[in-house]
Structure formats: C-alpha cells, structure tokens
C-alpha cells in the first residue's frame, strides 16, 4: 500500500461540540454545532488543514455517510 500513490490521506480528525448561545441578531440563539478540523496529506507530502462547522441535522447526515461507507467496506 505504501508505494501505491494516493489522492491524499486523512491524518487528523478533530472535533468540538459547542452551543452558540447568542449573536448580534438574537439574544437566544441556543443552537448546538459541531466544528470539525481535518488534516490531509497529499501525494507530495503537503499537509493541508481544513475546518468547517455543522448544525446537528447537517452532522447527522455527515455521520450517516461514514456509516454507509463503513458498512460497504466491511463487506469487501
């Protein structure tokens, strides 16, 4: 595997669960969110970092995609 080129590998996956409590638009925001921080290293050993923020429904969809992948992977 090591010698076969790859499109990039996931090297770090960090997350934070938080609640946005208020903002300039509303005093009662009270919305949970999930921040995801990932690091990917490409074929040239270049590391790039990315972060994004998900609402709970967005996160549930994100989680489902990984579960679907995993289910198919174990069959192989």
């Amino acid at each position, binding site marked *: 595997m090591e010698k076969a080129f790859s499109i990039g590998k996931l090297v770090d996956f960090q997350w934070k669960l938080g609640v946005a409590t208020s903002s300039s638009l509303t005093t*009662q925001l009270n919305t*949970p969110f999930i921040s995801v921080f990932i690091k990917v290293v490409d074929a040239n050993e270049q590391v790039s970092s990315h972060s994004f923020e998900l*609402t709970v429904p967005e996160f549930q969809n994100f989680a489902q995609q990984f579960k679907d992948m995993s289910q198919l992977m174990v069959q192989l």
Partner: protein
Amino acid sequence: MNNPKLFSNILGFLLNKEYEDDTLTIETLHEMVFSETDVSLENVEAMYDKCKQVLKKAIYLDHNITSFETLVKEDFTDVQQECFIKFWKINKKKIHEIIYKKTRFNNSLDKINWRIDLKTKSKNVNEMNEPVSIVELKLKNNNNKLNSNNIIKFEMDKSQLEETLQQINNIQKHLQSKSMAS
C-alpha cells in the same frame, strides 16, 4: 392592506428578501401583488418597513407566541395581527435556523461525495486487494461561494475509516447525552 392575502404576501416577500437573500425589490412586490389595487408603492414600502422592524425585534428577543401577540397588538389591524401571528408560528423555527447560519463565520459543508475502490495491483505491488474509501468534501464559506481550495479529497483504509467513525460515534453520544440530537 387589510386583505389577508395581500398582507401575507408582504410577509412572505419580507422573509425571502431579508432572510433568504432574494434580490427582488419592493417595486417588484408592488407590481406583482398590488397592481390591481389602489395601494401606492409608498404605502407598501411603509408597511414593509414596519413589519421588518417588528420581525427583527421578535427574532432578537426570541418571542414565543404570547409575547409576539403582544408585540403586534398595537400597530396592526385584527386581520393583519392574525396573519402575522400565523406567519410567526409557521416560520419561527425556519427563521431561527437561518439566523444561526447567518452568523456561521466558519466554513460549512456543502456536499460530501464518496466512492469505495478495491485496489488490486500497482506498479510496485503485485497484489493488494485493499479496499479504500475515497471522500470528497466541498466546503462553502459564509458568502455561499465555493472555491477550489475548499475541495478536500482523501482516502481511508478500513482501519482509518473505523477510527474516524469511532470519533463520529463519540460526537453522537455527546449529543444524545446533552439531548441536543434533533
């Protein structure tokens, strides 16, 4: 202006324009909805602004139905109040979501695509039979703009996928324990 259909049209238009980034102008609203009536453009503009201020306040203070009823009591006719309250009941949750997304300064995830490959052979390795999942994440910033830096591609073998999934399950457990899962 006391016609419930016309008034509700103003509210619907307000929601689209102020909160869903619709670029239509009030002139267009006047043309589309009020052209057959004797309501002037100035009157539509004034009513639009009045509703906008009330809605802004209700959002800011996160009014429930009772306090919303009190808020609209003085400045609107009975028919208008009824429309406005109904509008708030139907759209409160949706507006709340929009308001959250408006102050999401970090990237959001626009799309996730994935594919599972079975790597069988390469130049240097005769036999691999190693399944990998390839994931592409498209990120979007707060201005809804996609740029090429925001497309992330990576692959994971079985064990990496399991590790990542474990992290995701942890997040779900935390969400459930804090009753945040919707």
